[in-house]
């Protein structure tokens, strides 16, 4: 078995349980794979190989003794570099935290450890998760395995890439406005943003606290569900989490109603993307789903509301980076005011500065009523429209992104245009709903992957996974890049 690294997590689990392979063998295969391919795709900010092998040995020893093992026992995975793993760096791909070592575990990490999973490294991302292309990273800049001259999408760029390049079977990302679903779509893998309050945010560096949610990325539905099941649930350290147990999923859409909102198929969506997504809808129709036209009229204002709320929260959250207690400290230490200025001006990249300034601007005296308050009102309207729409359907299907992966630098100097690419994913964060990107073929003009998004009712991840599983079976699985 020379290609252990390329197996699904499900297959790894079966082989481990039958004792046909050991976790050490799988972990070694994964490490060799990463060592061989990561110079080309740059998915990682740091590796955890030594600990990974020790942990794999420990899991093998537990298995040999017949001890009870967790759901992910012995299976390697990667976590995004904004999730604390005690003793490893958490950099957020920023100069500001380049040397920050996590003093404690995120709850997600504790849960992965309790599941006996093997963490092999920390994946790169847009700086402080601000970006949808992966280009704003100040450390490793991940490349799309389908064409390394193109962006992998962000902000969970490294997690998407390590899965797409078959370095690991699955990885954890985080999603504030599409940061799991967009890179999943750009790299042809699956990515789930769970319902807000499903996965604990404790120990994850915040971007916009009322939108942030961690979630799994994988190459098939079963693996994705396995990882999701391991990390979800109530955490007393995150007051918004709910007593949630993931109750599995089916594989039939017979009798299910799928809503198709016209606002998500407008002029901004590339024709190739629209074609592929409509084909996916047709496939599900052929499997017995009923297709219903719906309308979500507030969508046209969602982008504005999203950037106002997100940046307002981000500007507040990033106020903590003052150069005093942790992280980067600027060179001028003669007085505290200058220290703040040099620390923040030297430590943050341009995208982070833009968002802090936008957030500060919309919250500043005289503007907060016109911007922040209106955005919050729009958030309510949008959430209410989704609630209304879900009275007539079980899930909603849209494109995951309006376009396919572009060339590095192609949109440099035009941040507003890049922001506009988020339009299909941000509405879910605004409304707190779960959504998942599923690959649905390629754009024939550039051979880059296209993804469609399945949106579910709150805490109904099972519906989303059922639709995804049915689609996966109907199309005979998803393409994997030979890399």
């Amino acid at each position: 078995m020379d290609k252990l690294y390329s197996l699904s997590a499900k297959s790894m689990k079966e082989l481990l349980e039958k004792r046909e392979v050991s976790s050490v063998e799988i972990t070694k295969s994964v490490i060799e794979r990463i060592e061989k391919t990561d110079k080309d795709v740059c998915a990682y900010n740091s590796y955890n190989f030594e600990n990974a092998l020790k942990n794999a040995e420990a899991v093998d020893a537990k298995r040999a003794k017949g001890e009870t093992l967790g759901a992910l026992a012995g299976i390697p995975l990667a976590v995004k570099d904004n999730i604390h793993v005690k003793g490893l760096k958490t950099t957020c791909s920023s100069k500001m935290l380049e040397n920050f070592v996590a003093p404690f575990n995120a709850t997600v990490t504790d849960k992965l450890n309790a599941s006996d999973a093997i963490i092999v490294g920390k994946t790169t991302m847009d700086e402080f998760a601000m970006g949808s292309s992966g280009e704003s990273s100040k450390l490793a800049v991940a490349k799309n395995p389908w064409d390394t001259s193109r962006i992998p999408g962000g902000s969970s760029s490294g997690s998407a890439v390590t899965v797409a390049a078959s370095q690991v079977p699955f990885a954890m990302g985080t999603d504030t406005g599409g940061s799991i679903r967009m890179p999943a779509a750009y790299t042809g893998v699956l990515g789930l943003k769970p319902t807000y309050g499903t996965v604990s945010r404790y120990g994850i560096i915040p971007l916009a606290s009322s939108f942030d949610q961690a979630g799994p990325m994988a190459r098939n539905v079963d693996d994705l569900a396995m990882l999701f099941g391991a990390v979800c649930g109530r955490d007393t350290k995150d007051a918004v989490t709910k007593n949630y147990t993931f109750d599995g999923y089916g594989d039939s859409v017979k009798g299910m109603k799928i809503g198709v909102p016209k606002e998500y198929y407008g002029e901004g969506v590339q024709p190739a993307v629209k074609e592929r997504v409509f084909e996916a809808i047709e496939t599900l129709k052929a499997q017995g789903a009923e297709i219903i036209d719906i309308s979500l009229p507030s969508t046209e204002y969602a982008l504005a509301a999203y950037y106002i709320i997100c940046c307002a929260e981000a500007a507040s959250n990033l106020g903590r980076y003052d150069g005093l207690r942790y992280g980067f400290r600027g060179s001028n230490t003669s007085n505290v005011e200058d220290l703040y200025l040099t620390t923040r001006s030297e430590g943050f990249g341009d995208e982070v500065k833009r968002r802090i300034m936008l957030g500060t601007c919309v919250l500043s005296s005289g503007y907060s009523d016109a911007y922040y308050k209106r955005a919050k009102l729009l958030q309510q309207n949008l959430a209410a429209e989704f609630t209304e729409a879900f009275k007539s359907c079980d899930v909603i299907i849209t494109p995951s992104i309006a376009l396919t992966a572009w060339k590095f630098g192609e949109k440099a100097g035009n941040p507003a245009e890049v922001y506009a690419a988020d339009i299909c994913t941000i509405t879910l964060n605004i409304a707190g709903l779960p959504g998942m990107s599923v690959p649905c073929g390629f754009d024939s003009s550039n051979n880059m992957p296209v993804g469609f998004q399945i949106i579910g009712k709150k805490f109904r991840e099972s519906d989303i996974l059922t639709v995804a599983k049915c689609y996966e079976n109907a199309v005979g699985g998803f393409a994997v890049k030979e890399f």
Partner: protein
Amino acid sequence: MKIDIRHIAKLSKLSIPEDQIERFEEEMQAILSMVEHLPEIEGSAVVVDTTNTMELRADEVIPSASREDMLMNAPQVAAGCIVMPKVVE
């Protein structure tokens, strides 16, 4: 809305070099004209999401992080304290 980069940068505790002011102003202006596109919505108070309320944990004494762990990322430490520039003369 016209953005005053110097003023906003000051409020944000950022210093933008003079030769970058124009570029930031252009980029921020484009972003602002995108977010200005919001309708007038009737309504005053933003209500709490009653379907998704927070649940606090029990107020119990549990072990907390050690001083060493909390100081290991500090840029400058002396005698178990974080060193920073003098604030009061």
